């Protein structure tokens, strides 16, 4: 009799894998984006099973919410249609795809061979926001502040890149 946690893990895992395969199979970018949202929502469920409540909430709000809305917005803005069938790089197909398959089979073999049947004790980790805040604002304060600079640079870069080219020329003249 499998435990309730295992059943939940398998249910979310099937949604994850189905969404990932669907992302590859779909030809229209908006369908790929929606399946990626399904993957992220199912991953939030996996995080909950691992006792990481705050990570699950952030996953839904930031990833499935903000980042994917940005993607969908750009797909709509550029009116992206069905992917064109063009011949890509032959090296990528001949070397890359078998390489990925061999590499993933090797990783799966190593994981299954070495990790045995050790169990993750679910709920044993205090993933409470208080503990996370203690770590984030005390032990990891410097990286936290550095990421704020990164975000500031990213915002400025996005504004500079996405602004109309003639607008900047007009300003220069």
């Amino acid at each position, binding site marked *: 009799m499998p435990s309730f946690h295992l059943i939940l893990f398998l249910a979310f895992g099937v949604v994850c894998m189905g969404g990932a395969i669907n992302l590859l199979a779909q030809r229209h*970018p908006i369908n790929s984006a929606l399946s990626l949202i399904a993957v992220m929502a199912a991953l939030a469920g996996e995080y909950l099973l691992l006792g990481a409540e705050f*990570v699950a909430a952030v996953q839904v709000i930031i990833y499935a919410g903000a980042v994917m809305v940005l993607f969908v917005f750009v797909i709509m803005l550029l009116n992206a249609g069905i992917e064109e069938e063009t011949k890509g790089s032959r090296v990528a197909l001949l070397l890359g795809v078998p390489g990925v398959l061999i590499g993933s089979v090797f990783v799966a073999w190593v*994981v299954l061979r070495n990790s*045995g049947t050790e169990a993750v004790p679910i709920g044993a980790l*205090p*993933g409470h926001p208080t503990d996370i805040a203690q770590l984030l604002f005390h032990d990891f304060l410097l990286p936290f502040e550095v990421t704020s600079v990164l975000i500031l640079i990213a915002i400025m870069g996005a504004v500079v890149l996405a602004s109309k080219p003639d607008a900047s020329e007009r300003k220069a003249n």
Partner: protein
Amino acid sequence: MVPLSYYLLLSGFLFACGVLGFLIKRNIITIFMSIELMLNGVNLSFVAFAAHWHVLAGQIFVFFVMVVAAAEATVGLAIIIAVYRTRETLNVDQVNLLKL
């Protein structure tokens, strides 16, 4: 109780799907989404190891990965908009000015 290896296998599967999408997809936005899929796979293994070793720092790294992913998404999508404005295409095979 779910074995750690199950989480790692799911994480590896998501990462492999991301790499495959990066290789076989021709739409630049879909390629970008494949990168997000890879980052998500890595995040899952971070959280699984954090729960396994009882070290909360693994969850902090997930937040940093998310921040980097969000910054990368904003800049990357801005680049995509700029590329579309000049080349009028989203197909990566037609954006080949730097190709030998």
